[in-house]
């Protein structure tokens, strides 16, 4: 499927962040669930950021 929609928890740091980047490079729409509201959510094309 092109442009998969992917939801990632823990996407602000570490493995979750690397996973979000890896999916975004493949054109995925990424919905991230940051753990800390004070942190800046990572946004990219077709990335959904929930803070």
């Amino acid at each position, binding site marked *: 499927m092109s442009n998969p929609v992917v939801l990632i928890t823990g996407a602000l740091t570490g493995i979750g962040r690397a996973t979000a980047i890896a999916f975004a490079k493949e054109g995925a*729409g990424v919905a991230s669930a940051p753990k800390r509201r004070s942190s800046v959510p990572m946004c990219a094309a077709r990335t959904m950021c929930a803070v």
Partner: protein
Amino acid sequence: MRGLIDQTVTRFGRIDAAVNAAGTEGQPGPVVDQTAESYAATFNTNVLGTLLSMKHELRVMQPQGRGSIVNISSTYGHEGAAGASVYVASKHAVEGMTKSAALEAASSGVRVNAVAPGPTETGMLNRFTGTAERKAALGKTVPLGRIGDPDEIARAAVFLASEKASFITGQILTADGGKTAG
């Protein structure tokens, strides 16, 4: 979690894959130093968090008749580690839930797997090891001779989430440079 998932469906119309990567090392230390509080702090994120994430992801994916969930476990999800009993227990739970959810979701065409990373270059590993020297020493215990990069774990998760893994469900893919092969 429910709100995020509902927002995602509203905006994109579906969820094709989910990676549950939120986790904590808790308060590492020997069993004799553990408390109900240290247990709860670790299990709330690693076990309850993964459980509720899967619950709401499956709520969307099962009616879709397709979808792929990838949980992030650890090599400690299938081996013990001195000084990390609660974290180890929580990751064993993640692997048990992964396999059980896979069996429940299979008839809906939804796959559930996990990636079990070995030592990986993250803030968690820095907190676990404490010093650069101890981290370097840990890297030398890995057969490939180094700590893993987060992108190397991410690529395993992307694979399991993708159609390339269409016949794989209920599995734990260990990405640890060979550390648990011996």
